[in-house]
């Protein structure tokens, strides 16, 4: 699975990026400021981590042909990259004084880059965007009250269960809350001579942070309050305790039973009855075990305790603050996040279209996990919120692992994590 550079590297690069932005700003005196350039011809540079593979590249090329027809004289040079190396591409381009005009990036990336002055204010209002997107979906693109990014597609983490396994145990409906989930999972777990044959619930196939966060939100906790970390609150500790109980107290799943990026998730293999997983699991199942879909054996359920919660990631379109063609770049941002491109981009990656109008599309309706996510976007939460989030998030996994392995209590792990986050925030981006 994807490997991310160390936080030190990222931090160093971001630091250099910030310095470069400052120097670029100084040396760019006399250049066209965003908003000053008029229409007409322009050559735009677009950096994208989505529209991957040959089919994605072809799709984007054909969509951009449509864009060019509507915007004669505007050409778009596309730079395809992957999420794992997006930060390096962005930073080197900014440091080199050649920022891309339009950049696609993930949820949680907007505050750091907006804070550094890399991104342009798109001049849109929340009310205006709310006509096109679910209000929850808009939030990751907003920083300091300004809209810096518009959503293209979303990806979510949710509860997923095997109907057939639950039915065999006489269980007719998925768990209504996390307490019930734990009890149900205990019942569904099978061990033979101590060896785990089937986990009642699998919480290890997904990225650990992305599993913990929806559980934490469901317990009523939040990441930040007024820019300060609050993920060591009592509710957050209860959330991590719930995960620790799954592994250490109830032995519902063994640490090492599976891992993120495994060839197949235990749920697909019948080695888990439920899981906290990515909506893209639908695609994995359709390729690896299509009979499960044909026989309607898989469905999603909401992680719920104090409140229902869905983890929401995604890809957003942003515009550089340094672009020489702000009008055309803004049009490209609107085009990429618009009603034509968003559904197609989402379908190509097996994700969720950001636009409301795609909710009834055949793709969404036929993909039960995507349609479940679309139906529950009102309960979606996004990570991030502070400019140093990209550094802070790297600290989550070791802290969570410490708790799951019994090296620290949930309270100790989260307190330590919060103190580290405070230090990172104090040092600044």
């Amino acid at each position, binding site marked *: 699975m994807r490997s991310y550079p160390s936080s030190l590297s990222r931090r160093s690069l971001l630091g250099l990026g910030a310095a470069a932005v400052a120097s670029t700003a100084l040396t760019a005196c006399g250049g066209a400021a965003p908003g000053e350039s008029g229409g007409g011809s322009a050559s735009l540079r677009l950096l994208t981590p989505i529209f*991957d593979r*040959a089919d994605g590249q072809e799709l984007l090329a054909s969509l951009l042909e449509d864009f060019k027809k509507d915007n004669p004289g505007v050409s778009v040079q596309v*730079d395809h990259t*992957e999420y794992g190396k997006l930060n390096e591409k962005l930073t*080197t381009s900014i440091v080199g004084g050649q920022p891309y005009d339009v950049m696609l990036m993930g949820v949680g990336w907007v505050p750091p880059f907006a804070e550094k002055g890399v991104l342009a204010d798109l001049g849109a209002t929340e009310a205006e965007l709310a006509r096109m997107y679910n209000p929850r979906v808009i939030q990751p693109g907003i920083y300091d009250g300004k809209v810096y990014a518009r959503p293209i597609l979303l990806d979510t983490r949710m509860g997923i269960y095997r109907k057939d396994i639950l039915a065999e145990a006489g269980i007719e409906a998925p768990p209504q809350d996390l307490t019930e989930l734990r009890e149900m999972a205990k019942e569904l777990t099978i061990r033979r001579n101590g060896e785990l044959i089937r986990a009642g619930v699998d919480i290890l196939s997904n990225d650990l942070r992305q599993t913990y966060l929806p559980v934490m939100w469901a317990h009523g906790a939040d990441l930040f309050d007024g820019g300060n970390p609050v993920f060591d609150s009592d509710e957050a500790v209860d959330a991590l305790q719930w995960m620790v109980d799954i592994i250490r107290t109830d032995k519902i799943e063994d640490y090492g039973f599976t891992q993120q990026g495994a060839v197949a998730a235990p749920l697909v293999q*019948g080695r888990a009855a439920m899981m906290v997983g990515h909506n893209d699991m639908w695609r994995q199942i359709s390729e*690896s075990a299509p009979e499960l879909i044909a026989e309607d054996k898989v469905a999603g359920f909401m992680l719920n305790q104090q409140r229902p919660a869905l983890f929401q990631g995604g890809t957003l379109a942003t515009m550089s603050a340094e672009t020489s063609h702000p009008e055309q770049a803004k049009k490209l941002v609107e085009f990429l996040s618009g009603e034509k491109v968003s559904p197609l981009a989402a379908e190509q990656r097996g994700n969720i279209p950001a636009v409301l109008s795609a909710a009834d599309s055949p793709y969404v309706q036929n993909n039960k996990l995507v349609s479940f996510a679309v139906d529950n976007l009102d309960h979606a939460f996004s990570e991030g919120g502070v400019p140093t989030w990209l550094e802070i998030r790297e600290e989550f996994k070791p802290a969570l692992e410490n708790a799951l392995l019994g090296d620290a209590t949930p309270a100790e792990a989260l307190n330590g994590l919060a103190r580290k986050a405070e230090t990172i925030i104090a040092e600044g981006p």
Partner: protein
Amino acid sequence: MSAEKLLQGDTDRGTRPANRIPLARLLRRTALHLVLATVSLAMVLPFLWMIITSLKTDPDLASYPPNLLPQVWDWDNYSEALEYAPFGTYFKNSLLISFGHTAFNLVLASTAGYALARVPFRGRTLVFMVVLATMMIPTYTKIVPQYLIAKGIPFFGGNDYLGQGGHGWLDSWWGLIVPGALTPFAIFLFRQFYLSLPRELEEAARIDGMGEFGIYARVMTPLVKPAIATVGLLTFESSWNNFLWPLIITSDTNLRVIQVGLSTFQQADQNAWAYLMAGTTLATIPMVVLFLFTQRYFVQGFARSGIK
């Protein structure tokens, strides 16, 4: 003691060790071969598993416990993997860059290594220390400065004489090849080899009136073939596997390399395992072929330079 007994005793003394040594040697050899076979198998197994995985279908990959051999040998994975991205272009680009790096590195590093080993000049040790020191700089920390240098090359990519106004070597073959054209490790390796050659050879050539370049090219370098093979193979391998720099410096798909192509099988949300293994199998072939041709010299190269 009779002569017969003496003879017998002599025979015993003579045959006993003769019988024991082959047996001990046989046991030692058997043990050694067992260990070597086990280690070899451990080395080969990941490659075998990669090839087997590349021939499995998705349901086969997902089955638990995993099947040792594919239930259906899905050779289509290879053709489908090649359709995932323009691998023909990526493969050609990687070959060009790898051969370019190898050729430049062999010429430049051997001359530098020769100078550091055989040509006395003031500050030679300091220069060698600086070369060694550059080996200790992590790649990540060099990326941004290297990017800035590539962008600021004068008279290229629309740049003026101050290196401004254009994009320099970004998105160009220059940017892909020149920054990796000389490695400090290759200089170090060549130096060690040239140091090991007898001074008499050099002196004889000098007495015969041969110039310094002639001594380097016609007398000394033909004697360091293991170094040439070692540096050539290592440079090719490193260049072939390079991912980050080609990704960062290029935006044009036509300039992308095989490793960037392989990354298309690995996305944040899912991996296309069968295609990834098929693509990796294909990408491994040039390295395996190259090693087969150069392995004799390659092993000598490491043994003689004292590197393990």
